[in-house]
């Protein structure tokens, strides 16, 4: 029977369609209840394939959670996150640098109350725990923790007649002079002192720590130990022992330059001696001869950590914690899955005691000439940056960038050390007053 097309029939049809859509919507909603929660995870661009592998493993073990990774180039990371945060762009989990923790703490989620956090804290290395704690609250779990070490070209040292790396700053100068005089290197010393990022000032921090001191005292004046370090450092530039090109090099590019084989020593973070950098058999000319040694003088070293944090505005904080716990702590079986994997795949050292005892980890370290026990001892005894400089002051990053610029002027002789130190102190006091 043919139906007549009338207004009533059309209205009925529309009503039926709306009803059907409503039922489907309800059913759909019931369906979405089983949909996995999606977490947005922001990272900087270091070995993102490795990070994706970790995510895949986590998702396989936690089918109710999916993680979408967003990668930001390292040198744009802080301003980009700042912009995202100002614009209220939603994200759940992110990498956090310890130097920016104070600034970001107002919108980061404290983690102390989460299930398992207390147990993980007990296992953390002091340097990791202190780097991730601000005003008594824990704001992250360790992505990695690392320390400053003397990275040296053993072949070049032996070529100059030295069987061991320098144990004092004076010995360091003597070795550099000998290497230069024998024509083994035009400028044996390489330093990462580019103005941006962590560079020159972190080397100053490491030098001050190695002499058992701090950079700024409680009154924000530059300490005598720092002045001694600076005078020594400037003298290496005056003598032509240090490469002035280092002023353009950040830690990554200086490590790449070191891989070219033209330098004897570099004071930088330990992982640059790893198989992904100086001991990379395919890319490095100093593969197999690059070794790690403690910093000279008292052999105390400066340490730091990078962490996984949770956005306090996240709608899925419980799921974010499960993910962070897996990435920066243990899996369901209590094993440090990613901290161990980072050692083998990225030369990034751990933030928990005992990881070095894992046979895979120890074998990986030994494969490029690092002594697991020595690495562990350095990590265990590393002096946190906050014990050397006002690292957790809100104004620290601004001071550091300004201080990096002044440091460059000191190193190449444009500004006397004492004048530069006064400029550091004045800037620190000015900023401290502004942020009081």
């Amino acid at each position, binding site marked *: 029977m043919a139906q007549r097309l009338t207004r009533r029939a059309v209205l009925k049809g529309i009503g039926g369609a709306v009803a059907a859509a409503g039922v489907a919507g309800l059913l759909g909603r019931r369906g979405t209840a089983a949909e996995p929660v999606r977490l947005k995870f922001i990272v900087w661009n270091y070995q993102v394939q490795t990070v994706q592998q970790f995510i895949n493993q986590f998702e396989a073990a936690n089918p109710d959670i999916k993680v979408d990774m967003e990668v930001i180039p390292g040198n744009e990371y*802080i*301003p980009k996150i*700042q*912009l995202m945060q*100002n614009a209220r762009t939603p994200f759940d989990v992110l990498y956090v640098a310890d130097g920016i923790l*104070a*600034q*970001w*703490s*107002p919108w980061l989620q404290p983690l102390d109350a989460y299930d398992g956090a207390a147990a993980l804290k007990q296992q953390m290395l002091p340097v990791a725990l202190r780097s991730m704690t601000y005003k008594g609250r824990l704001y992250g779990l360790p992505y990695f923790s690392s320390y400053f070490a003397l990275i040296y070209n053993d072949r070049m040292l032996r070529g100059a007649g030295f069987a061991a790396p320098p144990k004092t700053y004076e010995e360091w100068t003597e070795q550099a002079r000998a290497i230069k005089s024998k024509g083994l290197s035009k400028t044996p010393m390489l330093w990462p002192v*580019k*103005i*941006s990022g962590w560079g020159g000032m972190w080397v100053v921090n490491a030098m001050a720590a190695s002499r058992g001191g701090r950079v700024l005292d409680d009154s924000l004046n530059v300490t005598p130990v720092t002045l001694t370090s600076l005078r020594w450092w400037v003298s290496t530039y005056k003598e032509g022992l240090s490469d*002035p*090109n280092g*002023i*353009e*090099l950040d830690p990554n590019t200086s490590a790449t*330059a070191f891989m*070219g084989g033209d330098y004897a020593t570099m004071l930088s973070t330990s992982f640059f001696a790893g198989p992904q950098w100086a001991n990379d058999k395919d890319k490095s000319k100093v593969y197999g001869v690059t070794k790690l040694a403690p910093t000279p003088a008292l052999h105390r070293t400066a340490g730091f950590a990078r962490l996984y944090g949770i956005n306090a505005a996240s709608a899925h904080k419980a799921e974010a914690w499960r993910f962070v716990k897996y990435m920066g702590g243990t899996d369901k079986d209590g094993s440090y899955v990613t901290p161990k994997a980072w050692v083998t795949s990225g030369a990034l050292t751990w933030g928990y005691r005992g990881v070095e005892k894992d046979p895979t980890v120890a074998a990986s370290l030994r494969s490029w000439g690092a002594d697991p026990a020595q690495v562990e001892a350095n990590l265990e005894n590393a002096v946190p940056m906050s014990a050397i400089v006002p690292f957790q002051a*809100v*104004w620290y*990053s*601004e001071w550091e*960038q*300004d201080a*990096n*610029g*002044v440091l*460059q*002027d000191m190193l*190449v002789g*444009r*500004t006397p050390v004492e004048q530069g130190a006064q400029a550091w102190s004045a800037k620190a006091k000015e900023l401290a007053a*502004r*942020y009081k």
Partner: protein
Amino acid sequence: MRSQAPPAGLNASGARAVVASRRPRRARLDGPLRLLNVPSVVLITAFTLAPIAYVAYLSTLDLRIGAPGSGGFAGWANYRFVLSDGAVAAAFRNTLYFTVLSVAAATAAGLGVALLLDSDAPGTSLLMAGAVLAWGIPEIVNASMWQWIYNPTFGSLNGLLVSLHLADRYRAWLSTPASAMHAVVFAYTWKLVPFVVVILYAALRSVPLDYYESAALDGAGPWARFRYVTMPFIAPALAVAVLFCIVWSMRAFDIIYVLTSGGPGQATTVLSYFTFAKAFQFGDLGAAAAVACLLTLVTLALTFGYWRALPQEGAS
């Protein structure tokens, strides 16, 4: 001498005639047709005036991310703070130096290339294609390209100089204040020149050849022809090109960000980079907004002063 020169006559028969013929058309836009301006007014208000007003508002707030008690009204405090900051004064000096040098260099080089193109010498079409190509490169790509060129360990500039025996070793071009600033200016100028070339080349093509022939018959040499025939014709275009170059150079950012990050020391920190760092690296949004407002005012003052200094229409 100059009053008898072609400009008055040229203007009467050329440029002025164009202006005069346009006036009635402008007049016809009176009335309802003025509504056609509404979309552009709305867009300019939404995307230019409103953000400027918002930044001006931010500059009166105490916005220091992570600082205790931050968020309240600060009045002129941010302005007092930045005006007393030696780093802002240094950035201001750097900005002026960078702007003057890059605009002068771009204008001179752009004019030279445009004249070369206008001469129809062999290979000029290739030169034009090169100029347009350089213009089409995004600023961040241009900056990255120069980063490689200047690289102290594998840069092509060092390689070229050493292979030509003009240098005995690789140099860190960005490691001293003078060489860093001039290297940055050179890289920025390279990107700015094509714009000047395109604008001036178009103006040069509009100069009637008859005037050159008349001037030659009157015994005018190349310099006199350039001064009394070419310049009067291209002066308005040149003025616009310089104006744009000033505005762009005052707010140049990408090249500094990529090449030097403001270093060595503070040698290449210009106001735009300083503002960026203050806001997005150090979280001092109020002070950054104050610097941005000051930069806007300085740019406006410079461009307005420049505009006022130009000869007015009808002046001989």
